């Protein structure tokens, strides 16, 4: 934490406890259920130099391209704020986390990292809690509708670890959309991000969160999402993975009131030797709630994905609607997609389904596009892009969809040049 800021007492105490928890929690090992099929070697962080590389903030700010006219924009370099521009109503709190700790300590305390990290990375969540230096705090009061998008860029420069934290709280009948984008300042240096996003969707509110992970291909990221959705609230979480050597995403959505609705969406396009490891948990605590998960992976080269998802319906969560789908498109014979969908139902009258598929593009599909004059390489690319577009369209915001697609197209263009 910045030395000029005095941290609230509660946070100091929690950071100390978290540090102890980090140290006493064993490192995940082969054979741990939560790390099945995972590449445990990626949890060895010894190759990080710990030395930040000098970077020109002006250059990074100019490279922080996102949507046109975001309602707020933040750019962080190694967790230090280097740029911010906010045009929001006064009632809305939208601040760098370090400032929010100071100005809105009680409000932050009410919501900051409230859920137990249960999908395998408890140790790294503890490290995050102990080390968090910055990020963004958004609090939207009752009935405030933000039509635009809040955009946050996180840059890693050098062989360091960043701990970006995004905490979003929506009051009753409010609405907000936040995009986090993770970048590396250069293409050669291995960095690490241990990122956390806390999403608390209040009653009848609408909360959209989009994470775009476009780190360089020698960096790693552990990204933990925890969402709570109150009565009649609608939360939408979307993750795009195009970058990093290895990414681990853990996403937990708790449906806490009747009529709560949670969309959990992801698009991953690993190529070469990239590995993406995703674990999800749809926790139906309340009766009459709805969750829908759609994860799509398009695998190139020798890449690898792991998807492990669980729908868990508590005893009293009657009339639950819960769906979970993971689809893998295998673009080469050497890629590897592992899927472990799961379901545990302890209530009555529920509608649940889960499934995963892995397939290659069929010759007949290619034939159709070729018969229109499109060469087979481009045909495969169009089909693969379309496969991802089906998820992106569920964002239901043209500007953000275009932004996400620009990262997807950049990835496909890179693959085409290989």
């Amino acid at each position: 934490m910045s030395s000029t800021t005095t941290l609230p007492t509660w946070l100091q105490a929690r950071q100390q406890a978290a540090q102890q928890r980090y140290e006493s929690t064993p490192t995940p090992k082969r054979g741990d259920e939560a790390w099945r099929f995972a590449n445990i070697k990626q949890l060895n962080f010894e190759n990080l130099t710990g030395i930040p590389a000098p970077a020109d903030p002006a250059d990074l700010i100019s490279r922080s391209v996102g949507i046109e006219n975001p309602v707020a924009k933040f750019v962080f370099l190694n967790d230090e704020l280097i740029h911010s521009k906010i045009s929001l109503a006064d009632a809305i709190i939208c601040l760098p986390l370090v400032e929010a700790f100071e100005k809105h300590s009680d409000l932050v305390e009410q919501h900051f990292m409230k859920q137990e990290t249960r999908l395998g990375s408890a140790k790294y969540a503890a490290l995050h809690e102990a080390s968090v230096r910055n990020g963004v705090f958004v609090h939207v009061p009752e009935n405030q509708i933000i039509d635009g998008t809040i955009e946050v860029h996180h840059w890693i420069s050098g062989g360091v670890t960043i701990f970006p934290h995004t905490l979003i709280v929506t009051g009753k009948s409010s609405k907000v959309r936040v995009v986090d984008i993770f970048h590396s300042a250069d293409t050669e240096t291995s960095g690490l991000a241990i990122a956390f996003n806390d999403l608390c969707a209040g009653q009848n509110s609408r909360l959209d969160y989009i994470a775009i992970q476009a780190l360089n291909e020698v960096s790693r990221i552990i990204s933990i999402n925890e969402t709570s959705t109150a009565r009649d609230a609608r939360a939408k979480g979307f993750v795009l993975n195009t970058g990093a050597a290895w990414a681990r995403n853990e996403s937990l959505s708790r449906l806490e009131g009747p009529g709560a609705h949670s969309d959990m969406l992801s698009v991953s396009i690993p190529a070469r030797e990239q590995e993406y490891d995703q674990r999800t948990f749809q926790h139906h605590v309340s009766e009459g709630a709805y969750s829908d998960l759609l994860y799509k992976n398009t695998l190139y080269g020798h890449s690898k994905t792991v998807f492990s998802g669980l729908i868990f319906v508590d005893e009293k969560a009657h009339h639950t609607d819960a769906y979970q789908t993971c689809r893998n498109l295998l673009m080469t014979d050497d890629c590897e997609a592992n899927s472990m969908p799961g379901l545990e139902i302890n209530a009555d009258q529920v509608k649940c389904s889960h499934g995963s598929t892995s397939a290659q593009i069929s010759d007949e599909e290619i034939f159709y596009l070729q018969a229109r004059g499109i060469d087979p390489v481009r045909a495969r690319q169009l089909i693969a892009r379309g496969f991802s577009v089906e998820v992106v369209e569920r964002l239901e915001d043209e500007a953000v969809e275009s932004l996400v697609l620009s990262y997807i197209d950049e990835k496909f263009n890179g693959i085409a040049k290989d």
Partner: protein
Amino acid sequence: MSLQINNLHATLENGTEILKGVNLEIPAGEIHAIMGPNGSGKSTLSKVIAGHESYVPTAGHVLLDGIDISEMSIDERSRAGIFLAFQYPNEVPGVSNANFIRAALQARLPKGEEIDAVAYYKSLYEKMDLLEMDRKFTGRAVNEGFSGGEKKRNEILQMMMLSPKYCILDETDSGLDIDALKIVAKGVNAMRSPERGMLLITHYQRLLDYIKPDHVHVMAEGRIVKSGGPELALELEEKGYDFLKEPALA
């Protein structure tokens, strides 16, 4: 100027011979129809002309305006001027119709040249209006959730946009109600031109009430067994394929 098929033989990958020496010439400006019972090789012929890789051409040639296209890939044949309207058009999820047709047109341009978007949409909308297609079809994924009739109309739309030299329509009438058939026929007739040849593959004479062919051929057992004028279609309709008295057809 013609699409010429000379002694074309083709087998399945397992060696079963489907085309057993097809000879056919479709001059530019003419519409030919091929009729024939199920399993006679009509659809296979259309796919082999388009270059489908599940069939192995074992003898013969396909000449497009005198140029042998037998060694060309599927997409090269398309760009050279062959268009196949599919009997069962594929769905392409996540790719909008407008982007799909645009990609097909783009593939015909020299590298570095871009489609003029304004002119493109103008042309697209004109053709959609003719085919009585709602504008919403531009944004919908190719053929996804389309009815049978909508898919066929979409094939004709693509054909009109790509403006090929030779069009092969594989059972475009199947699954169409009479109103949809009329609209599809309107599109095909609008494409009639002295510079363009067309081959209609169909089971039924009905299509030929709306698209008048210059010549009708009957295919059986992997060969063209009879050729004639439009009256041949009526004769087939009346008497059935048995009248050809080919023992193999019994």
